[in-house]
């Protein structure tokens, strides 16, 4: 029961419990001897019942009874009457055990097992579970069992839904009831049962219902959980969507086979250097999907007449599902201009991890221009040698007519999006919620109210697609700043959300993005055909995001932030130079996404905290500790390079052995001693410069 103070045991209670333990031990010894000798006589079975009545937690005794039941049911002389009496006996034992402890896992499980044998009448079960729920309306065992019984009885989900309503009316502080309600509603909506045809009709009533709880007592968490579920139901589209791509729709891509001075009319946003004879195509979905292949995604171009593209999921956990997929399209210098058209989902096969089909087939196209080889460059390739100095970055003077990729993916989203009418009610529902919680916050300071408002505003923003109302970001940023102060125990979560919103704000429109676009120019190379450098430094970011809008970035400065993780960075396939200097990265595991960035040549991870902590906590910062697969491809033969044992550096080994870095800065990390540097040099034969020193 909830809210009942524990009594301090009196001496006589202790004596009694000692006597009880004595008795229990005797019973147990006898019981185990029966059990081990497989004795299922009446006397033996009764003894186990006695044991369970005193101690319902004795799992072995429950299992013994299961064996005994099987034993009797398999007797040749068993008849319906004897079966019934056996089953009834079991139910009785469970009931008296539950009376002893109505939260006994073993007892509830045994009851399920007995019922699943199919000989018992289930009419009594609902009454029993009602009794237990009346005794404690929040007993989740009883709720669990109730779901089981309801299913067994074929009780209508509408009736059960009504039951949750009654329970909530009695006391709305009931996680179990709200949870069951969400389960039932999901089922009813999925089945499109009568009265539950669409979310559009059902969810507004649910919002109304949950408001009563939230407004009556905003401090009660159970209601907020249900609200979060409702919000998810409102925002979530079941079928996956293509959110963005690289190259983006309508873009003109200049592929340079070699570095050159000649820029022509192409924008540094869409100029890409490729010496591998191929360029990546990146598809960014709104959720993890499976089944992206040359069958489900067709690519038509002047280049690949015969060859099927190989699509690879970009996920850190080598699973077959990913939010981002990449393929490399080979181009030929014989064909200097070609347009490429990509059709996604015109054949079935792309499915979300929850099994929903990709159902909004989309097309996007772009032009590719190949710049043939002009071997006159005597200077070093810029993108292979960067000095991350302030003076080397010049604010990018924009040519007004220039296409910036952000515009085009906005268009893409619109074309792909579900029918506008279908999303109307969603936007309306969100707008209503926003108004509602603004009002609540006008009455009182409420942490979870602020958090919910922030979430609502962002959800609404994501739905509205328009650039028009970007004030919303400032409001949300302010909410998260408030929350960091109000609720220090969840500081890091708010900080992360704050970072993500800030990135949304930066990438929300052309003007704000341009403020972060720079061109790299150092004293050695004065070339201006360098790609744009996106500088998101000094923003006190603790988390990186908005990847769907940054697929085009080749040079990224994330220095002087508070990043502990770079989860999701693997989406930025074009990345060739990356600075993470002066962050809070604690281990090489945190750099795992880099392994997927095949174009990365320059990396600055100086002045982080790698090696400071003996235990690699980064693993546990990731969305799921199971999503990490580092070590699965461990090969014993590789553990020694020369005479240096890698055993202490295996995490570094896994990151760097797959990178083709030419320049690396690692100073200012605990781990970066001379010995380690030696290993790095041996690990990466391509490396030309380490911590500013040219390597022989």
């Amino acid at each position, binding site marked *: 029961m909830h809210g009942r103070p524990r009594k301090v045991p009196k001496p006589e209670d202790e004596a009694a419990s000692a006597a009880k333990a004595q008795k229990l031990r005797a019973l147990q010894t006898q019981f185990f001897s029966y059990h081990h000798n497989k004795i299922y006589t009446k006397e033996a079975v009764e003894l186990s019942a006695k044991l369970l009545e005193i101690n319902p937690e004795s799992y072995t005794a429950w299992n013994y009874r299961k064996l005994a039941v099987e034993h009797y049911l398999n007797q040749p002389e068993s008849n319906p009457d004897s079966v019934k009496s056996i089953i009834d006996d079991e139910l009785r034992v469970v009931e008296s055990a539950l009376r002893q402890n109505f939260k006994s896992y073993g007892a509830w499980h045994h009851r399920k097992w007995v019922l699943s044998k199919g000989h018992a009448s289930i009419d009594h079960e609902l009454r029993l579970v009602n009794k237990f729920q009346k005794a404690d309306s929040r007993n989740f065992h009883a709720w669990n069992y109730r779901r089981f019984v309801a299913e067994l009885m074929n009780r209508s989900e509408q009736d059960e839904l009504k039951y949750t309503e009654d329970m909530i009316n009695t006391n709305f502080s009931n996680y179990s009831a709200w949870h069951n309600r969400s389960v039932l509603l999901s089922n009813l909506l999925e089945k499109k049962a009568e009265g539950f045809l669409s979310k559009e009709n059902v969810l507004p009533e649910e919002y109304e219902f949950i408001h009563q709880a939230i*407004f*009556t*007592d905003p401090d009660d968490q159970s209601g907020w959980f249900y609200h979060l579920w409702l919000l998810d139901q409102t925002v979530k589209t079941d079928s996956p969507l293509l959110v963005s791509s690289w190259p983006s729709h309508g873009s003109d891509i200049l592929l340079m086979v070699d570095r050159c001075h000649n820029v022509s009319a192409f924008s540094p946003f869409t100029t890409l250097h490729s010496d591998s004879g191929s360029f990546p195509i990146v598809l960014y979905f709104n959720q993890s999907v499976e089944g992206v292949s040359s069958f489900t995604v067709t690519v038509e171009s002047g280049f690949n007449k015969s060859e099927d593209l190989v699509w690879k999921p970009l996920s850190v956990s080598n699973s077959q599902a990913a939010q981002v997929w990449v393929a490399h399209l080979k181009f030929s210098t014989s064909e200097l201009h070609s347009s490429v058209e990509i059709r996604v989902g015109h054949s079935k096969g792309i499915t979300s991890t929850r099994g929903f089909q990709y159902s909004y087939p989309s097309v996007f196209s772009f032009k590719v221009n190949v710049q043939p080889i002009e071997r006159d460059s005597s200077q070093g390739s810029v993108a292979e040698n960067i000095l991350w100095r302030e003076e080397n970055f010049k604010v990018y003077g924009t040519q007004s007519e220039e296409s910036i990729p952000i515009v085009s993916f906005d268009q893409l989203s619109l074309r792909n999006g579900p029918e506008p009418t279908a999303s109307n009610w969603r936007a309306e529902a969100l707008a209503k919620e926003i108004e509602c919680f603004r009002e*609540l916050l006008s009455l009182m300071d409420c942490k979870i109210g602020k958090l919910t408002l922030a979430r609502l505003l962002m959800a609404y923003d994501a739905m509205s697609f328009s650039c028009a109302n970007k004030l919303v970001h400032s409001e949300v940023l302010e909410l998260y700043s408030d929350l960091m102060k109000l609720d220090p125990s969840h500081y890091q979560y708010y900080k992360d959300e704050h970072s993500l919103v800030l990135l949304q704000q930066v990438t929300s429109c052309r003007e704000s993005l341009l403020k972060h676009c720079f061109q790299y120019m150092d004293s050695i190379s004065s070339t201006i055909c360098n790609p744009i450098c996106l500088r998101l430094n000094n923003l006190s970011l603790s988390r990186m995001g908005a990847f769907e809008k940054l697929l085009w970035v080749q040079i990224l400065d994330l220095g002087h932030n508070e990043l502990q993780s770079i989860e999701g960075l693997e989406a930025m396939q074009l990345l060739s130079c990356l600075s993470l200097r002066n962050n809070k990265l604690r281990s090489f595991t945190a750099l795992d996404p880099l392994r997927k960035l095949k174009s990365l040549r320059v990396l600055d991870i100086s002045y982080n905290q790698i090696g400071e902590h003996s235990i690699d906590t980064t693993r546990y910062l990731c969305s799921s500790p199971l999503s990490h697969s580092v070590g699965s491809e461990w090969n014993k033969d590789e553990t020694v390079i020369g005479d240096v044992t890698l055993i202490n550096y295996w995490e570094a080994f896994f990151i760097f052995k797959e990178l083709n870095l030419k320049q690396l800065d690692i100073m200012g990390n605990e781990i970066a001693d001379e010995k380690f540097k030696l290993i790095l040099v041996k690990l990466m034969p391509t490396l030309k410069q380490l911590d500013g020193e040219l390597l022989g």
Partner: protein
Amino acid sequence: MNDLPPYPPIDPTTFDLIVIGTGLPESIVAAAASTASKSVLHLDPNPFYGSHFSSLSLTDFPSFLTSHSLSTSPSPQSNGHHNFTVLDFATRPLYSSLDISSFSPHLLHQHSRKFNIDVAGPRVFFCADKSIDLMLKSGASQYLEFKSIDATFLGDDKGNLWSVPDSRAAIFKDKSLGLMEKNQLMRFFKLVQGHLAGEQGIKISEEDLQSPFVDFLNKMGLPPKIKSFILYAIAMVDYDQEDVGVCRDLLKTKDGIDQLALYNASVGRFPNALGALIYPIYGQGELSQAFCRRAAVKGCLYVLRMPVTALLVDKDNGCYKGVRLASGQDLFSKKLILDPSFTVPLPLGSSPPHPLQEKFPLCSLRDDRGKVARGICITKNSLKPEISNFLVVYPPRSLFPEQVTSIRLLQIGSNLAVCPADMFVLYISALCNDDDQGKKLLHSVMNTLLTVPVSINSESNAAVQSETAESSFTAQSDAGEGKPTLLWSALYIQELTLGQVEFICSAPMPDGKLNYNDLVDVTVKFFEEIYRNEEFFPEASSEFSEDDGGIALET
């Protein structure tokens, strides 16, 4: 005296305490005194227990009220005695403007014995109030059974009944409050709970506690509707708190919070009770009877149907000696408690000895708080479908602008054994200054909620006219706008008298409150005044510990 039936002589003739009248305060004191091993004789001229606190059948009820509407002067019959002066009792009128109307005499006559009409209604218990504690402590609770009052409503002049959101669950379910109002109300409750529990950071300042509760509610920014709920339907205040001119019981925040605490502690005190309020099966008269039973168990002697005629006073020092019964027997005791209907006028023309005059200030018993108007209605339909037992509060000014006091209405159905099946008894009360004002208050509620058959203009001789009314009543019984039709009503104005403790004591009349909290306080003081060295129901006297005793609640 010759007309009186032969009374058996009472033996012994000397007691520690003689109590006349079996009203609730008298019965509690009788039980307490018996528990303290005093020899007690408890008399009542009536053939039933409870006196002004009784529950009566439909035939006994009018005669009881009528008999206490008149004042009687003592008939000079008393014989002197060599040792003491005999002062004949007089009775004073306690009820006035009695107005009984019956619109269906046949139907009611058939069932007349099935009614248990409370004389001092409407009355309920808060589960956590002092009377419940007293019943548990004294053991009287074992003779009583209760049921929950299902709901409390706030009424308006349109006849709407708004449920009172008196708990977290009720606020959640409420359909009339807006989301903001729900939030405000719950936050206020939490503030009060936090204050009471001494939670950190939640404290209502001393300055606020001493200020009027209504000011505090305003300061909290609560809207008028919620203020009404809190003041009149939860704290049960009588007078208009926002009109200092008429308000005679301006509630301090401190006391308001105590009221809320009482209400809050009442909800959920007994697992079977639905809300804060309970009502005894067979009516409120059971309560007095339960204490009498308790007293009897402890040795108190009971004689009903025994009128007393005179007070016996020591000739020399004017001290009380005893009483003379209607049987002519003289009984003596150290202490005496009298039913409030008795007075002792000093014989005209005779100037009593000086000490006597000093000891009989019996004329100043009138309560300056005015009077209480009470109404009882019997209907065939519930005011609210599907529930039968509930309370309705009409805050000041809710029915008409001049309404300065709350009007409370309690509907009790047959499942509490106070009326025949399919009937309902409605008790209405309000404080008033005079009879006209009182009647106006009662009528305003009746007109709002009930269809009153028109043809009858009932005066006190209603019985005669009702024969003609019968036919008109049946004709239009189902016609009224969905309002239940009145079958019978009794309206009366009751005097409020305070108890008085001298060497003989006069018990108080029922007060104008909804529960017995104040009366219990007065009674405890009464006992302590009489027996300064005795404990009022010492803990050990209860054979039933609270664990197994408790309150019998039927669900």
